[in-house]
Every structure is written in structure tokens, then in C-alpha cells.
């Protein structure tokens, strides 16, 4: 049951990712990485990092 649900979650996540272009998928992963580094902060300090990620991935 657990295993099945986990696989279903992974499949649905994959489906969402597949709707994006390769560069958009890269951008999404970069955004998550930035969030992972900042998630504990009440205020958000990652705007410039995110804009840089956009400029570097979407050309």
C-alpha cells in the first residue's frame, strides 16, 4: 500500500516535471536547492540567487 502510493506520488511528480522543458526542469531544481539553503529563514534572502538561476538556465 505504502509502496504503491509512493510510486503513484513519484509518477505524478514526474508527469508534472515532464510538462516542462529541459531548461525549466533545471531551473526548478536550482530553485529548490536555493530554498533548501534558505528554508529556515523567516525573511527571504534568495531573490538575487534565484534571478541568477533564471538568467543562467533560460537563454
Amino acid at each position, binding site marked *: 500500500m505504502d509502496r504503491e502510493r509512493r510510486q503513484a506520488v513519484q509518477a505524478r511528480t514526474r508527469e508534472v*516535471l515532464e510538462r516542462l522543458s529541459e531548461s*525549466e526542469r533545471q531551473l526548478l531544481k536550482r530553485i529548490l536547492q536555493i530554498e533548501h539553503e534558505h528554508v529556515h529563514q523567516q525573511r527571504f534572502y534568495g531573490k538575487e540567487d534565484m534571478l541568477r538561476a533564471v538568467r543562467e538556465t533560460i537563454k
Partner: protein
Amino acid sequence: MKLQSMRLQNFRQFFGEQEIDFAAPEGGRNVTVFHGYNGAGKTALLNAFIWCLYGQTTSDLEAPERLETERAVAEAMPGAEVKVSVRLVFVVHGERYIVERRRAGTKESGATLRIGDTELSLWVIGPNGELNAIGANDRTNDRLRQNRIDQILPPDLYPFFFFNGERVERLASKDAYDRIESGVTTLLDVKIFERGTTHLRRHVAPALAEQLSKYGDADLQAAIAEQQRHERREQEIQEELKQARENVARLEEEIETYEQKQRSLEAIKDLTEKRERLRDDLRNCEDRIEKTDEDLASAISRDGYLVFADSVFRKTEELVAAARQRGDLPAKIKPQFVDDLLAEQTCICGRPLPPGSPEEAKLLHWRNATGLAELEEAISQTHAAIPPLRERRSRHVADLDRLMTRRSELLTERRRLHEELDTVEAQCGDTAYGEEAARLADHLKSINRDLVNRKADIKFLDEKLAENEEKRSDIRQRIKQLQVHDAKGALIKRQKESVDRVADALEEITRIQKDDVRQDLDEQIGEIWRDAAIKDYRASVSEDYRLLLTKKVSGVEQPVHGASTGEKQVLALSFVASLVKKAEQNLRESETESPWDFLTGGQYPLVMDSPFGALEDDYRQKVAEWVPNIAQQVIVMASTTQWRNEVEKGVYDRIGKRYILELHTSKEGADRQIEIDGHSYPYVIADNDPAECTIVREVREES
């Protein structure tokens, strides 16, 4: 996070420097126990963890500004420095950290102390045992070090892992829902996705939109401005919704408190009990209405068309009867019969039928006339199906009648129950039962009125949000169609569109993850509760992360009203346990099959002050047996009354380290001993020093 050791220096009751090693998570003996008399420093020890990691203390710590041991202050000479510090050693993802928070005060006249600034140090121990200081070049850069600690265990999560067991039920209270949702999403890494969506929409997309508007004409600029207006409006609505939900939760909590007070009034005991029964009946009735509506919908979607089919049946029968009367049906010659004659090239009278002969041409003409055989078959089948369909139609109409009658009876029943409930609620406030009863009923009436309004606010805001979302989507499409001046503008437009798509994808992934996390927690908490609970209640997590305790009444799950503090505590502990398990599971999975470039989940210890304090005897042993399995590492502080035989029995085999918080007091005759494992140890020592203090003594097995 695996806790290894702690060093206390003049922290609250703990005089001088004192070292504590914690039981390791491995090897099955994962519990560290501290036995302490009232005032010996159990709550102070819990606060030592929190202060060391976050520089904060819990709200139940008296005089939180004074952390330095009284005795250290008393013994210091005027002008001398009094230091307080807590050092903690722990391991995260294989890396060993040392964190130390300290401050130095200066003794002034009397017992006053001028308190200095707090400093924080953080080191990572390298593979060869070397200490690598974080932010070493900047002694004042505490924020950098604090950030690193917050990354390891975010501050909004510590109430789940370092808590006072006597107040743990607060985690299950309605006003804690927001904290629970925030804690769950952070701990289980959903917050990363949620924040990613928000930050892309609130910071990155507007910055790109601003740049983009420089590369377009007036139409594009107006469209971008409109889009930003809708974005801002959405944020406002979200804030208002959050506030409205908090209001509803607060009012529901108030209602629960006032009704609890009503239940304790002997004069209206019968009435409040009747009210509970009526509410159970009402919920039951609502469930049956819902079930009847579902049955009706399913019957109509399956057979509803038959109600209108009678004229079609009649017409079909008339057509078939007319065709029969004319002799068109059944057809006189079957096509297969003619095909066989043609294949054999011989007529039934024996005359040959050579290809191309006039006889064969005649027969082919007949063959074409028999082409309606399939149609005849279909007509015949349709005609034969009419009687069973008529019967099914009659059954369906009878079913609809039955369900509609049932629905109408249930609606009458619901109206009656509402009226009766109104009467009982009014009776509860009758002045004949005393002023207190009348006052409580008045309060409840006004809170309930308020609650209806606040719920309407939520509905209204939900509609506004949907409306705004639609406008946002339209404007996004419009911007897509509009032209920009040059290649640079086209690039920014592309980037903006990609950011919008990535934000949408993140929002969808957040929904998927949230749903998964909730379902998982719901299953885990249900399982853990079943293991710990005495009563036949069911624990679950609702769609909006509310902790629910329900019972089955006439086959229907109903919320439990007036659960005891102990039951609420076990519910909260079950919730914490399910969180810890899910975080551990996430870590295991992310190490092997995560699509992301970072680890999710983690391992967390539980540090609990007096977790058995308010539990009923039945629960005490159950929880004691169960607590060592909640987390990989468990640290418990308890007094002798909280740590009775059944608790000792339940945890005994899992204790890896045991300490006594030996309280030194000047009170004459206060001496007490504590019995552990057949041995007697000093527990409270009356000595001559006027300032109380506590010494941490390890109880070793061989002693």
C-alpha cells in the same frame, strides 16, 4: 541529529561545570533518564538544550533572564566575571558538531549581575579530530553560525522535539493548527516547494515583469501592471484567509472551553449530556442525508434516462407491429440460404445456375433484397429488450420514490433535532440553574454567532481567490500574445514565462507532496495511537492538518468531546512520534530514490520534561513501554512521583544512561533518598550553603 554530550557551566541550578553523556541511539538502549526532585532543574535542563541551540527559553521557565547559577553569583567577588554556558555535541549526516552558547556577566554590589552579550561558537569536527570553526574569522558573526544551526533543526520545529510533557497536549489544541501545519511542512520538506512557489511569484516574476515592461508598448505595460495588481490582491486575500481561519480555530477552541465549563456544572449535567446525545444524533442524521444523496445521484446517473424512455418503447413496439402486419418482418428469405445456392451453382429445383446466366442474375437480385437481415436481427433484439427495460424503469421509479421519501423523513428528523438542540441550549442558560450557567450560555451564544460570520468570511474569501486566479490566468495569456521590441525583450519575456510555468509546476508538486504527507501521517498516527491508547477511539489527521480524535457511534465516526488531558497528551505524543517516523522514512528514501539534489527528512531525538506527569495510571505504563520506540534517541526528565514502578518497568530494558539531579538545599531536614534498582542514592541534600544548586550524578549499573 544524534545527541552525544552536554556540558553545563553555571546554567540555572547547575553550579560549576558538569558533563552529561547521552545514551547512544544504537544498541537498543536509547533512553537517557534524569531523576529530579521538584526544583532540581528538570525544566532547566530542557531549557539548556533550547538556549544552547536557539538562544531562547520556554515560557514556563521562571525568571528566564537570569540564567546564571545563584551560587556562582553569590560566591563571586564584586567586579568579578560570572560565566554561564551550555555546550552540546551532536552528529548530523555523519558530521560531528560542537555548539556552545555563553555569556559573561559582571558581579556588582549585592547579588546583582550586569549581564553581558551572548556569544555563539560552532565547530565541525574533521575526519582527523581537528576542530573547524564556522565563521572563525569573524567572532561577531553569530548570525552565520545560527543559520547553520537553524538549517540542521529549524527553530519552528524545536517545540516538537524539546518539550514539557505536562503541556504537550497544546500541540493538539486548535490554536496550534498553524504551528502544526508549518512544522509538518518544514520537517517533511514540503515547505521548500511551497516557498519556492511563493518566492518565484512574489519576488522573481515581478522583477522580470518590471524589466519586461521597458521592452513593450503601452498595452504590454498596462497588462503587466494589471498582472501585478492581481498578484498583490492574491497575497492580500491569502493573508485575510489565514487570519479568518485562525479566528475560526480560536472561536472553536473558546466554545470547547466554555462547554467544558458547562459540563462541570452539576445543575445542568443532564442537559449537557442530552445536548451531546442530540449532537451525536444530528451528525448521524447528516451522514445519513449525505449517504441518501449519494444513492440518489448514483441511481439517477445509472438509470435516470429510463424515466423518459416510455414513449420510445411505445413507438418501437408500434413500428415493429406495423412491419409484422405488412409482412416485412420476419423477412421471407435468409441471405445465407441464397449465398449457399449461388456457391453450389444449383437451384433448389435442381436447375443449374452457371455464372452470368439469367437464372443467376435473378437470384442475385433476390440476394440484394435480403440485405436487411442484420437490421431485422437488431429490431428483434431491441423489441425483446423492451419488457426488461420497462421492468427496470419501474424498479428505478420505485427506488427514487423510496429514496426521496427517506430523504424527506431525514430532513424532518434533522429539523426536529435542530429545534430540540436549540431548546436544550436555551435551557442550559436558564437562570433557574444559576448565574454561572446563564453567563456561560450567553457567552456561547455570542461566540457561536461570531463563528457563523467568520465561517462565511472564509467562504467569501475562497470565492474571491478563485475569481482572482481566473483573472490572473487571463492576463497571463494576454501578455503571452503581446509583442516586445527586440531580442533582449524577447529573452526576458521567455524567462518570465518559464518562471510562471516553473512556479505552477512547483505549486502542483506541493499539492501532491502535501497530500502524500498528510495521508502518511494519518496512517502513522492511527497506527501509533492504536498501540498506545486504552479506549476505542481513532486518531487521525484531517485535510487541513488538524489532529482528530473520533469514536464510532452507530457505525459513524464522531468527534470525541471532552477528551481527558491524558488522552490529549497521548494524541500529541502519537503525532510527534508519527512525525519523527515520517522524517526518518523520508531520509531513507531520499538517500536512494529522490529526484532532487538534496537530502530530505532526517533523524531527530526527543527531549521530554515530565512526559508522564498528567497521565492516568492506565496510560502511564503503556506510554512508558512505547516512548523508547518513538524516536532513535529519547531523553526523559522525571520526578519520583512521575516515575512510578510501572514506568520504570516499561522503560527499564531500554535505559542506556541514568542520572540523578542531586538537589542541594539549605532547608533543614529536607534530605531525601531515591531508590533505583534496589539501591538508595542521595536525592535531596540539606547543606549549609544558602544558595541552592544541583549536581548531576550518573547512576552506574555496577554501583
